[in-house]
């Protein structure tokens, strides 16, 4: 669903205060300057928007933004939210 991708990108841009145009799927989280606190802030915002609770270790293997978004989408989808 393209709209969930778009919503998540909007939310990442807003939460990490990053220009939406820089959010390419192949960019690594490090390239984007996203540290662990940014990731937690984004996860919290996703939890609040979709009414889900996301496990703390869900992103331990995540490297790039595409993987991050896919994992988020998976967790949001599983909840039925």
């Amino acid at each position, binding site marked *: 669903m393209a709209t969930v991708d778009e919503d998540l990108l909007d939310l990442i841009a807003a939460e990490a205060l990053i220009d939406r145009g820089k959010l390419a799927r192949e960019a690594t989280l490090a390239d984007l300057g996203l540290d662990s606190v940014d990731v937690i802030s984004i996860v919290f915002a996703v939890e609040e928007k979709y009414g889900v*609770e996301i496990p703390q270790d869900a992103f331990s293997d995540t490297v790039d933004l595409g993987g991050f978004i896919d994992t988020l989408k998976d967790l949001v989808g599983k909840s039925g939210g």
Partner: protein
Amino acid sequence: MGVGASGRRIVVTGLGAVCALGHTAKDVWAAARDGAGAIAPHTFDPGPHGPPAHTTPAALVDGEVTGPLEAALGRRVGNSLDPFTVFALTAAHEALAQAGLIGEPVLERRAAVVLGHGFAGIHTMEHAYERFYGQRIARMHPLSVPKVMVSAPVSAVAMEFGVRGPVFAVSSACSSSGHAIAQGAAFIASGAADVALVGGSEAIATPGCLRGWEGLQAMSPTTCRPFSAGRDGMVIGEGGAALVLEGLEHAEKRGAPILGELAGVGLSSDAFHWTQPSLEGAVSAMTAACEQAGTLEGSPLLISTHGTGTPLNDKNEAAAIHAVFGARAKDHPVIATKSAHGHLIGAATAVQGIIGLMALAERLAPPILNWLGPDPDCDLDLVVGEARPIEAGALLLNAFAFGGLNTSLVFKRWGA
């Protein structure tokens, strides 16, 4: 004459401000001077777990603040700071840059940072509790505590600019930045520091906190009309303001811009009531500041009042001005810029000090806005309508906080 027993003279060498009137001290002054008030109705929505949204007047910072701050600092800030810290850091950077102090060794060795806040990281706290109580998620954000704590802004300033001397926050509700200025001046007067970054910040325009203020029965449902007939309360503003205070000799030696002199400090407590002001407390603070500055007699002062627009404050403050100055009470032009930028609570005195210093320098008193007509209880020389040319060489700046905590400061124009 200096503000302390040491006689060390204290001058202002940098100003920084961000509030609803603008994002720099210069823009804030220009809007105040031009009568471009920023109070407007805003809708505050408590979200799915709260009561319905409601609309009330406020003076909110417009536009992006974090992006320009990141550009100024040359590093990413992201969402790691509560807005009250972003405002403080923005104002501090502007003030230190104007003073020519960024990267200077004096900041590390001989500087203090004292900022005042009536509250703390209310945006962060309210959001965290919405999640905790509303959504019933137990896990809190790892930065919740550092973002909320009242000393976050001073720590952020110290870390950003490498200040290793006395650094702490002070709190006295609506007088907080007045006390911060007094404390910073005391460090310079005592010889403990050569430079003090002082001021305050506040960001409390959240759905829950505003309802708290409405519970006080002191908020206007319309707008802020200081000293006016028909005034019906205060309006919340937000922002940050910072001044660089410096020993005169230190400032002159390094050729710093001198923007004014802090010549008098008067502090008092009413020891009386949570929300009702006392005449004695206000008179005591104003008299002490004017005696120290030598401005009790003589030429007219520009008086930047606490002027909240509540029926009680303005009546009491007008009576206090009459009690302090007697037959000469109406010689002094009176301004009340909360009618333009709202009540910044902990940052109010600092932002009004900046506007007042620029008013002295440009010899123009900014107008009181939203004034409907005279109130016999507020018989003062009110500057209403538009900016008025003034001859005053000194500013008397008042803050009378809920809980009865008062500060009056006297600043003098530098040079003739």
